[in-house]
């Protein structure tokens, strides 16, 4: 669990689509737990997260969602971009 609640920045389109806000404060031990807690506030978010979401931990994209968040200040939730 993080020492103080994480600052969660919700980027479009997820802010309007699920949460109605752009900022949240949440306690979570790792990113899987964070997704679970975000789903509680924005039902359906967890279902689309693997397919549509990238998470940036303190400014760096993180695809390992077992990543511990003890010393983390901010997680940005942003759209996952495909390539060709």
């Amino acid at each position, binding site marked *: 669990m993080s020492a103080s609640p994480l600052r969660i*920045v919700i*980027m*479009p*389109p997820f802010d309007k*689509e699920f949460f109605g806000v752009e900022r949240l404060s949440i306690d979570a031990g790792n990113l899987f737990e964070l997704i679970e807690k975000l789903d509680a506030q924005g039902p359906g978010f967890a*279902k*689309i997260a*693997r*397919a*549509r979401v990238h998470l*940036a931990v303190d*400014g*760096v*994209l*993180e*695809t*390992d969602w077992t990543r511990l968040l003890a010393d983390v200040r901010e997680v*940005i939730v*942003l*759209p*996952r*971009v*495909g*390539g*060709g």
Partner: protein
Amino acid sequence: MNAPDKIETFRHIGTRPVRPDGVDKVTGKALYGTDFKAPGMLWGAILRSPHPHARILSIDTRAAEKLAGVKAVATGRDLPTLESLVMHVGEGASDIVDVSHNCLAFDKVLYEGHPVAAVAATTPELAREAAVLISVEYEVLPHVLGLDEALADDAPLIREPARGRSDEKPSNIAMDVTMGRGDVEAALSGAAAVVEGRYTMEPVHQGYIEPHACVASWNGDGQAQIWCSSQGHFMVRSLTASVLAIPQSDIRVTPLEIGGGFGGKTTVYLEPVAMILSRKSGRPVRLGMSREDVFRATGPAPGAIIDVRLGADADGTLVAAEVTFKYHSGAFAANDAGAGVSSAIGHYRIANTRVSGIEVLCNRPAAKAYRAPGAPQVNFAVESAIDELAIKLGMDPLELRMKNAAMPGDLQTSGLPWGEIGWVQCLEAAKAHPHLSAPLGPNQGRGIAGGYWGNYGGPSTVNLSVAEDGTFTVATGSPDIGGSRASMAIMAAEVLEVPYEQVRCVVADTASIGLSFVTGGSRTTFATGMATVEAAREVKRLLCERAARTWQVPAEDVEWREGNAVCTSGEKLGSKMSAGEIAGSSIHSGGPITATSALSAQGWLPGFGFHICDVEVDQETGHVSIVRYTAVQDVGRAIHADYVEGQIQGGVAQGIGWALNETYIYNGEGKLENPGFLDYRMPVTSDMPMIDTVMVEVPNPVHPYGVKGVGEVPIVPPLAAVANAVHAATGKRMRSLPMSPDKVHAALHAES
């Protein structure tokens, strides 16, 4: 110019060895999707909708079924009813219900060419004859193709209601994304110079030479095999299993050679249908597309309407940027808007930004990824506007770009900081290039443009095994589109310190290697390369360990040097064993030597490019010729230099086609009028000059060999580079693509 801090020397990295798949491909032996045949195979045919939008009232297949030689007929009713599930196994997220309904229409057809029914018969002629005998009763609905038309209050709704917006008035907006920061309006009102403009284009196709084709064989025991070419056979397995609601392990997908994809082969169109026909007939079934099918029913890159406003101080400091765009989504929700927002203005340091994009559903085939999907369209608008702004400010357009260029640590549009990007180094390399100061001839003009693409990493699996004679086989799950077999062999040979020819690379089927994401997103040399290096390092460690045990010395006393295990101390000091000697006796030292690396690669970095284009405009006809072209790109580090240059040249060629010639043309009935290469004008060799490439190497510190993706970046800048060159030659700002002779002629002779 920025010289590197230290020069690293390599045995193989950066060399240009002969491609391992070359002989098969130039002699015609290589097995592509259309070449594969299975014993007892039936031939399939698909009946496609003649209407762009219609409700299916009934389908009568009896006449087709009665035709001698017909073994199976399928419609959308043969596919299982699925619950909505958004998956990301190709390029971008797709709802599996959409994937299913795109393979075979269920209750409505959403574009001309939408598959309605399929037949399997003993000959291709019979299959086609039977397909025509299928009688479909349609209720034709109003259709809509244009972006603004699809957004009108009275526009026909493609989906009822439009998905994900049930709390709002139903519309054809499938996705909207907005990012930015600061106060754009205030900054623009205080700017010394402001430019604004609207830029437009119709969809274009990826234009791969090989049409889609597959063979499927689904046995009575539930197990199935599929042979096809794609950008990812694990993607084919995952989507086909999901559409059919069967376990993935019951499908084994064998990848065949691929004749181009460019993002367009990152989904399934035929495979689930061939599976249904195979199950019904009890025989393997082949399905293939004609060129017309490819144009009518597979994903183009979206057309666009893009509005741009840029503002700068008198010294050229960019103070505000607003980009608002609409992209064609086609019949189902596509993903390009997100990438378009991310790729519009992040190459400049601007305090006040707002980038907003929407995906608009319409009665066209569903848009699919095309090389840096979503980026070339917005880049065309932004880099044209930058050119216009430079003229307005009286500044050199390169100096304006250099003054505002984003550097490591600057914020992207998403708010994340850039990592070790090489954008400034590209600009400096371009400034020093002789092309920029070369004289121009009559009716010629020079344009420049820069752009970027984010690239990707993700899951890859590699198995590296040692044969008894000490040669090595690298098995990957990544289809070889841009030379990955050679690149993997180079990286493994580099780690193992052996000749390149001592390492061979194969693309293994889904039952023979672990999960690997599609070859797309410019990820394979980065991510699969990372796994290859990891596996090679482990094999090297195992070889040293076996030698140590053979010599009865501690493992730390053995090192790998020049392709041999070498004892570095004690009684065996100086003893050497080759990979062949170690592997040849591996049966007596613990068994075969092999290592698997399965990882989800992180730490990918974007690529940046800067292009210089000279054109000559025929004042009488409006025809634009490309007379010289130079592409500068940060490639991280080139593993196989020929392939890197080839990727850059290929991307430029496609970008030039997009700029000058390519476009979908629909008639008033919503039917495509140019579904072939005679009328859909892609550039050919005689249209092109030699495309010069400059590889700038700013290595990615996370990758063992500094790799950054290179395949997508080069299609981003050409649209604006060509347009800016046309402006320089004629004084006319072309804001609508393609800049075909009729449009250029009209611009040149507007007064008449």
